[in-house]
């Protein structure tokens, strides 16, 4: 007879432990959220092209444009939501996508260069 309460107690402890674990998991997930938002995407600028020419990211992600050409380029949204200014040869520019939307962009120095950034 006395074993039953002990079992119950043990069960209760297990439940409590499970609850603590799951709540700490939840807390962990909440803490990890800002880090998870910082996914990094790279757009290589080479041969007067943006590669990839179409990139889909989430809000809070970072996009790094790396200029592998021999002269400067820009990554400039048509709407001017973002504008890198001159990115020198062998340099890069980082933008954190803060607003959702589809942004056509290009290089103001070379109007033939066009690409699109989609922020979810």
């Amino acid at each position, binding site marked *: 007879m006395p074993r039953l309460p002990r079992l119950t107690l043990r069960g209760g402890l297990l439940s409590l432990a499970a609850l603590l674990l799951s709540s700490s998991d939840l807390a962990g997930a909440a803490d990890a959220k800002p880090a998870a938002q910082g996914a990094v995407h790279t757009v290589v600028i080479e*041969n007067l092209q943006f590669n990839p020419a179409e990139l889909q990211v989430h809000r809070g992600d970072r996009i790094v444009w790396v200029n592998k050409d*021999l002269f400067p380029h820009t990554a400039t949204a048509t709407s001017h939501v973002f504008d890198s200014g001159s990115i020198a040869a062998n340099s890069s520019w980082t933008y954190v996508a803060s607003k959702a939307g589809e942004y056509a962009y290009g290089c103001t120095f070379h109007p033939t260069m066009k690409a699109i950034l989609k922020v979810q």
Partner: protein
Amino acid sequence: MKCTMTLCMTLLVFAFGATAAWAQGAGPTDPQIAAIVVTANQVDIDAGKLAKSKAHSPQVKEFAQRMITDHGGVNKSATELVQKLHVTPQPNPTSESLQKGGDENIAKLKTLSGAAFDKAYIDHEVAYHEAVINALDKTLIPSAQNAELKALLVKVRPAFVAHLDMAKQIQAELGKSGA
């Protein structure tokens, strides 16, 4: 007969770029290619510097600055590469003809101003970039022996194509405005 020969030579130059300058179908050597590349970029930088100060239209001035910056970047890399490869650029009929063409262009541009200057500069930029792309495709890239020199030529080609598009675009707009 003489006329026919001249016409033949002109067509050859158009068809094969600088090939006509090389005897018996032998292409230029790497040191000769290096001199052609550096000269080709330099004459466009020089024309750009003149246009940046003399051009009438802001669009033409902007294009001139782009030529100075882009061809300057290409020449910086070309110079670094020839130093690394211990290649001494060797002047040759093509590089000399490019230099002569560049000097004549600048002499002509100096006599012009306003819209006439803009038109002459841009018309020459269209012809120049077409000629360089042709030379890259028909002579320079196929003749280059060193892999890094060949890679540099391949890498700069899209810039010449983009510049040609930009120059043609401006040429069309200058035409529309009756300049």
